[in-house]
């Protein structure tokens, strides 16, 4: 668990956390990018870009 960079609430993290993964803050809804896993470090994720997709 770590803090949301936007609202400070606790963010629950999966056991298999990956750098580059996006997790949602259940409190404020912000998408957070995982910068580090040990210890976990989060930052606000980039906004959706027009050419994103598959």
């Amino acid at each position, binding site marked *: 668990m770590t803090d949301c960079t936007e609202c400070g609430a606790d963010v629950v993290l999966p056991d298999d956390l*990956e750098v580059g993964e996006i997790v949602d803050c259940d409190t404020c809804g912000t998408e957070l990018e995982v910068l580090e896993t040990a210890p976990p470090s989060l930052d606000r994720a980039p906004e959706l870009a*027009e050419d994103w997709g598959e």
Partner: protein
Amino acid sequence: MRVGILYSRIRQDEKLLLGELRERGHDVEKIDVRKHGFGLDGTDASLADCDLVVDRCLATSRSVHLSEVCETYGVPVVNSADTAAVCANKAKTSLALADSGVPTPETTVAFTPESALEAIEAFGYPCVLKPVVGSWGRLMAKVESESAAEAILEHKDTLGHYEHSVFYVQEHVEKPGRDVRVLAADGEPIAAMTRSGDHWLTNAAKGGDVDPLAVDDELAEIVADASDAVGGGLLGVDLMERGGGGGYTVHEVNHTVEFKALNEAVDVDVPAAVVDWLETSAAESTPEVTA
């Protein structure tokens, strides 16, 4: 083998892939493409000693450029730069499919609102207006009247990126409330599903319900042909079924294919099948590394 994963965001699809690769003991190098520069003859990214690089870039622009960069460095990459270039652009995809005789919806590309309106009128209503670059069903328009067409064209022309002035007009195919996604590796189907919904867009990303689909000979043949038409590789081939026994028509081929929804819908272990194919691809590659 040593596998490079080009990424800028790790989705569930990449986690499935990473998990399978690591479970098999492969050496995985995650390469966040935002953190590196890519020169004409080399890079600080750890590409050079990879047996295979897998392009999982979320951004189409990065995917297209970096697959080209890898090939220039002599690093084997999936998918190929040619495949990425064709699949990244719907107009190129349509041309490639039609050129190979693969059934695909009737399409016209126009470059001004006036000529686009003429194309729309020629198709009749409803027809479909799509961006040439884009995914997840975004910015698609089902055009149902002349006044709607005029408004959409004016908005695209005025507000959009320059690529929105490439007007990609397509017939509206009356499908039976679903479309079909087939994941294929060099034309060989791995698994397939239908995506159903009440909305005219039935993408899984739009919330369509997914169900497994058995691939019959007809579907397998058209998927193989579509794969060949765009240059092969690991692809998500999207098809619609025309009413009245009109058969399948291929409307899209995806080159950085997402498969988490498919993996949940079918009994096949999709990440395992993908890694099987990656292992084969790496074994068949003969890298000539210069990076």
